[in-house]
């Protein structure tokens, strides 16, 4: 694992568990990845794969109890240039990072803004908190930010309430809020899922543009591989609380090394090429059979084994390790080499 460029955030062996009446849910079970400065990393997975919990763990927003970060470290280099282990920080220190060094935007713009305060107030709150500005200055910043994210008539809009705005507008407000303190890292948790397709594109465009302007890193959480292809530099694929594949976006799309990734790629309609899954007619769209495993009762071996058509006896025995397949591409499948061969044959 050789990080290229300067590492902004490194997650090492993160384990986040939830205690429920029925037992311990290992939502995140030993996740490791990193984000470089200025890079966009996409974390992909179905719901329940642990991607959202991972992002909330980075923010230390896991509700405790019932949740708990039981192991691992999250190393983060903030604007002050000092590297800190987020897991070990006090709540007060963590608050200085949230919204300031790391910001987050969420899936549901309709409900993510407080209905009883004006959007200006809500943006200004973060500014006042982290930059020590007074209310008036902060409101000025808020208006600037609204303009920055492309909202017309920002001086008027700052005094409006969320219910007076459309969904896309609100997501812009969320982005404005998140960027108001120039964070080093923006975590975007499915920011466009709830939006219309045209608005989706606008928001993604906006994010790309802003990233260029500010130079921040983005941790992009999504289940939509189309978005990944547009946005990400690198991709981490999660399944059952673990990373099953990681690599450069082009690499992943061209040569997935894990059956789950292959399944994901085949379950979205895209013009152009389709990943070839061995033993399957080329170009057919197909959903992954079965359901996400019960997190209370994960298989002893590979979590994807019950749904995997390539599963062999060895898959059931133990959790496969992450295999480095070269070029920083890693996959958690004992048969990855077979796929490589098949794919090379097909491409050839």
């Amino acid at each position, binding site marked *: 694992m050789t990080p290229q460029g300067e590492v902004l955030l490194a997650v090492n062996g993160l384990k986040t568990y*939830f205690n429920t009446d029925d037992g311990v849910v290992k939502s995140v079970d030993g996740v490791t990845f990193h984000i470089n400065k200025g890079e966009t990393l996409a974390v992909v997975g179905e719901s329940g794969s642990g991607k*959202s919990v991972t992002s909330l763990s980075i923010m230390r927003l896991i509700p405790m109890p019932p949740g708990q970060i039981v192991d691992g470290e999250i190393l983060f280099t903030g604007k002050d240039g000092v590297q800190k282990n987020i897991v070990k920080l006090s709540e007060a220190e963590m608050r200085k990072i949230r919204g300031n060094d790391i910001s987050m935007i969420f899936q549901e713009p309709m409900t993510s803004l407080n209905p009883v305060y004006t959007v200006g107030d809500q943006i200004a709150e973060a500014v006042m908190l982290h930059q020590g500005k007074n209310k008036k200055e902060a409101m000025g910043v808020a208006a600037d930010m609204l303009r920055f994210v492309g909202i017309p008539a920002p001086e008027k809009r700052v005094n409006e309430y969320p219910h007076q705005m459309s969904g896309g507008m609100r997501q812009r407000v969320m982005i404005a809020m998140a960027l108001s303190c120039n964070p080093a890292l923006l975590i975007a948790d499915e920011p466009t899922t709830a939006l219309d397709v045209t608005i989706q594109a606008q928001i993604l465009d906006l994010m790309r543009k802003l990233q260029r302007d500010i130079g921040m890193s983005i941790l992009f959480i999504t289940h939509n591989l189309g978005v990944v292809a547009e946005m990400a530099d690198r991709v981490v694929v999660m399944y059952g609380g673990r990373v099953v594949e990681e690599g450069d976006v082009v690499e992943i799309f061209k040569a997935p090394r894990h059956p789950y990734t292959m399944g994901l790629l085949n379950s979205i309609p895209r013009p152009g090429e389709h990943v070839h899954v061995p033993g399957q007619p080329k170009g057919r769209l197909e959903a992954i059979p079965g359901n996400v495993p019960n997190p209370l009762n994960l298989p002893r071996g590979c979590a994807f084994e019950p749904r995997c058509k390539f599963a062999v006896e060895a898959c059931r025995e133990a959790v496969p390790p992450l295999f480095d397949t070269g070029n920083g591409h890693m996959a958690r499948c004992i048969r990855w080499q077979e796929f490589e061969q098949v794919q090379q044959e097909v491409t050839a």
Partner: protein
Amino acid sequence: MTTTVPTPVRKPRSQSQWSIVWSQFKRNPLARVGLGLLGLLYLMAILAGFLAPYGLTEYSTTDRISWAPPTPIHWRDAQGHFGPYVNGIRRDIDMETFRDKYVEDTSVTCPVKFFQTHPGMEGRTYRFLGFIPTSLKLFSVDAPCKLYLWGSDSYGRDQFSRVMYGSQISLSIGIIASVLTVILGLIMGGIAGYFRGLTDTLIMRMVEVLSAIPELFLLITLRALFPLNADPILVFYIVIGILAVIGWGGLARIVRGQILSSREQDYVQAATALGASDTRIIAKHLLPNTATYIIIFLSLAIPGFILSESGLSFIGIGIVEPYASWGSLLKVAQDGGFESLDARPWTLIPGVFIVLAVLAWQFVGDGLRDAFDPRRRR
């Protein structure tokens, strides 16, 4: 709302809503306690005749027992025989303290008998489970002894028996009154919400009127309007009726609100377009939507009505003799004032039952509410 905490995945097969609610309900320990307690209380009410050693109004104007304390039960007699027995009791009015003094008359002993029938004894015959006439009692003692498990009232009526019989009234009054309230609330709210316009205005004004007029005033004056030589059992229904008449407003308002919002929904409009009649639309499409709310309302209204009944008894317009409710029994303690607390604490026992029943219903009600609410599921 997104779920940030992974919800534990339920059993793989899809469950019906009811079984989900039930399994959620079972997970709530307080709800389980409440349900168990209610089971016991209602079982007690059903078996009241069997559990109560005496009749509801059984007392003697010749023995003149007044405020007898709980009768001590002895286990080993002078001859060394083992088995529960009681001594006879003698009463004096102590003209120094003005309290009744009871001494055990050890020369008289009566064994506590189990599963005895008492044919021909006034008031001891009851209908087991409502239809089998019998005078079988779980336990009893023969005259001249008395077995007052929880003491007696001023006439020497056995409080234990009265609490048992009282449970039938207190526990059913809550259910019947709240069912009646729900029916009234549903009908009025349904009509108001569906027809809107003038009907709605009228009904909603009525609701406002009922909540604006002081309740105490309504209770007392409404009670005064009812027939005077009404049969006590009729009075029981009148009391229920008054409770329901006063209580339906809140529910009607909510039902109306729900209907107003859901009648705009597509399926209702579709039904209208298909020519379904108004009543059919209300009954088939609109009311079921409020079912969840009604179940929760019921379980939380019942304890309220149990308390209201005791309040009515307190101002003397509740259940009348010869019937007894926990409320009217507690009024006996209330009437005695400090003397009840100082000299005959056993008269407070009906209050314990009121608290227990209200607690149990609330546990169940809260449990149901949580179980129905997907956001509060565990």
